[in-house]
């Protein structure tokens, strides 16, 4: 086993009775890496993370975390890892600071460093000012941030995040990712996370796609997208019928006609578009090109989109999300506002976010954020927030169009 790896997994298996939840997975995570385990619910993500965190005993195979064996050296592993669970695990009866000091005592941190460490981790997640409020009064996003702070308190080498943003509104999700990126700089730790949000997998250095208990692909998001390889092009022309015929005859590509536009898929879009202009013979009014998305990657490796793959196990999850999302984010918190701005930035940066994620985001924005924000946020910040939400929504329109395009292509 590679001693230098932060996490090293060899043939790890877990069976529950006759059900094989994890069917022998192998991977290494380098120190300082942000590593993502991507898959639908029930793919074996949580079981894998629980085994690595020593909460579940593997049926077979082996794994080390920070060089320690997860079965034989459980205490050593536990000292070296921080955990942020899928479901909230902070105590609402205690204050933020009490939750952290509980953790510090449980982990036996030297008394003389506890105060400084608490200050530092609370600063990282922007909760220092709220430390003496009971967690009852925190919003869902603040609780998650408190959990991240707690997971960092004992300076772990590896921070495990099991679906760290599930059930949070999109603004808070982006804010959480901001903290994760920041703490990676500040604390120099390895981040191991699971997610079923494709947009979040983009934040990872490398992704392992896990499906039915097996790793089906493992690489950087870019490399994975490159293996799928085909760019999507959507054009509007003066005469779609003629253009479609020309494309089929002269360019030998499949074309789908949809909503007054043509959608096609080619290996290399940037080379294809100039040829299109010179050789189509029909005036082109607009061209739009989309790089392959992680959803395409997922589709290619598992034979289903992540949304379809999830349909079976999704009902219960939705219930949980509904419950968790209630709190919303208190935007009067300085960092909350920062997070809101972050959404706009991210939307502008990543031009190719998935249609299903888009749907998610739009639903979330509509249902959670707007309502929550309207209900929760105090009058004095209400206007700011509305502006931010408004700013955010137009930014999604290109994604919306692309969304239809992807669906059109899928129908071919």
């Amino acid at each position: 086993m590679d001693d230098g790896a932060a996490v090293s997994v060899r043939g790890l298996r877990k069976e529950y009775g006759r059900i094989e939840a994890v069917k022998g997975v192998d991977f290494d995570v380098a120190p300082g890496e942000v590593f993502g385990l991507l898959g639908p619910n029930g793919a074996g993500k949580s079981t894998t993370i629980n085994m690595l965190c020593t909460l579940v005993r593997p049926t077979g195979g082996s794994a080390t975390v920070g060089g320690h064996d997860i079965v034989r050296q459980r205490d050593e592993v536990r000292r070296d890892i921080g955990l942020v669970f899928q479901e909230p695990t902070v105590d609402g009866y205690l204050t933020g600071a009490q939750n952290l000091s509980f953790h510090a005592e449980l982990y036996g941190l030297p008394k003389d460093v506890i105060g400084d460490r608490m200050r530092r981790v609370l600063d990282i997640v922007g909760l220092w000012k709220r430390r003496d409020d009971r967690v009852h009064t925190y919003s869902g996003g603040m609780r998650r941030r408190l959990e991240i702070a707690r997971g960092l308190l004992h300076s772990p080498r590896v921070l495990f995040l099991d679906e760290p943003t599930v059930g949070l509104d999109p603004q808070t999700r982006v804010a959480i990712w901001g903290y994760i990126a920041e703490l990676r700089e500040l604390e120099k730790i390895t981040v191991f996370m699971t997610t079923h949000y494709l947009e979040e997998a983009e934040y990872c250095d490398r992704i392992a796609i896990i499906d039915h208990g097996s790793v089906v692909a493992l690489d950087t998001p870019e490399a994975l997208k490159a293996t799928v390889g085909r760019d999507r092009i959507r054009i509007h022309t003066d005469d779609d019928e003629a253009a479609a015929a020309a494309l089929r005859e002269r360019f030998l590509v499949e074309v789908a006609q949809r909503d007054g536009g043509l959608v096609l898929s080619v290996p290399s879009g940037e080379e294809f578009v100039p040829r299109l202009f010179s050789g189509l013979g029909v005036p082109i009014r607009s061209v739009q090109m989309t790089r392959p998305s992680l959803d395409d990657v997922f589709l290619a490796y598992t034979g289903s989109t992540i949304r379809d793959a999830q349909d079976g196990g999704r009902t219960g999850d939705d219930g949980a999300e509904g419950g968790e999302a209630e709190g919303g984010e208190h935007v009067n918190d300085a960092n909350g506002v920062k997070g809101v701005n972050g959404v706009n930035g991210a939307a502008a940066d990543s031009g190719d976010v998935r249609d299903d994620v888009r749907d998610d985001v739009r639903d979330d924005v509509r249902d959670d954020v707007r309502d929550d924000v309207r209900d929760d946020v105090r009058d004095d910040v209400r206007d700011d927030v509305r502006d931010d939400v408004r700013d955010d929504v137009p930014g999604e329109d290109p994604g919306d169009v692309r969304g239809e395009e992807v669906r059109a292509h899928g129908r071919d």
Partner: protein
Amino acid sequence: MAAIETPPARVPLRGAAHNLRAVRVVLRREMIRFATDGKRITAMLFQAFMWIFIIGSGFGSLMPGVPDGVDLKTFMFPGVISMTVILTAMFCASSIVWDREFGFLREMLVAPVSRTAIVFGKVLGGALVATLQSLVIVAMAGLVGVPYDPVMIAGLVGVMFLTGFTMSAFGVLVAARMTSMESFQGIAQMAIMPLMYLSGALFPLTNLPGWMNTLTLLNPLTYAVDPTRQVVFAHLTVPPEVRAVYGAGVRWSGWPVPMALELLLVGGAGLLMLALAVARFKRTD
């Protein structure tokens, strides 16, 4: 954002001092929760009040009158103290189910600290909370003709803590594998109700039919309730015929079981259940 540079905090290897800190912090959490939950204290006080003054007065009117103020209320007073200890301890243990439901249990179970320390802290916390809660009932002594004797109160605290410890351990043992609050409450009620009614907490065991007498002698709670009553009755001046009904103590085919043995039984049962609870928590999937 994080302006101050702090050295990383290294977690030490497991040691006795570390485990002690874990016990203490788990216990402290129970205390914080107790202190911030005023409603619980009030509700328990109200319940005790009802038992002693409504039920006690009501059924007391059926009992032969005793001239000098010692009546069913006085008899029920230690019984209600025991009941409060038992119910509070069980309630504290139920928070384990709560912790599991809300995930906090995982935070504790993934810590590099022995499960024994966590379970022990939890049980100690339950015992302490039960003792404090019951002290509120003890404060009502004057209303039922029991003197505020410091020796008696000290004795009561001792018995209450021991009972609380055993019941917490029992509660934690039950809670160890429960996944929902409903099933815990169901099981707890099913177990606690008959045990409580057959323990002599609410009515004297002196003139019971034979089969019921046997059941009370088999009931471990009998040996927790009786010492509480003995401590109280030791500080009352009552005519022997009244004592014979209300403060008779437990007899094994005529042999009066000494209080020390009763306490030993209760403590032994507590340790056994603690060990079983720890074993349950040590098992990983």
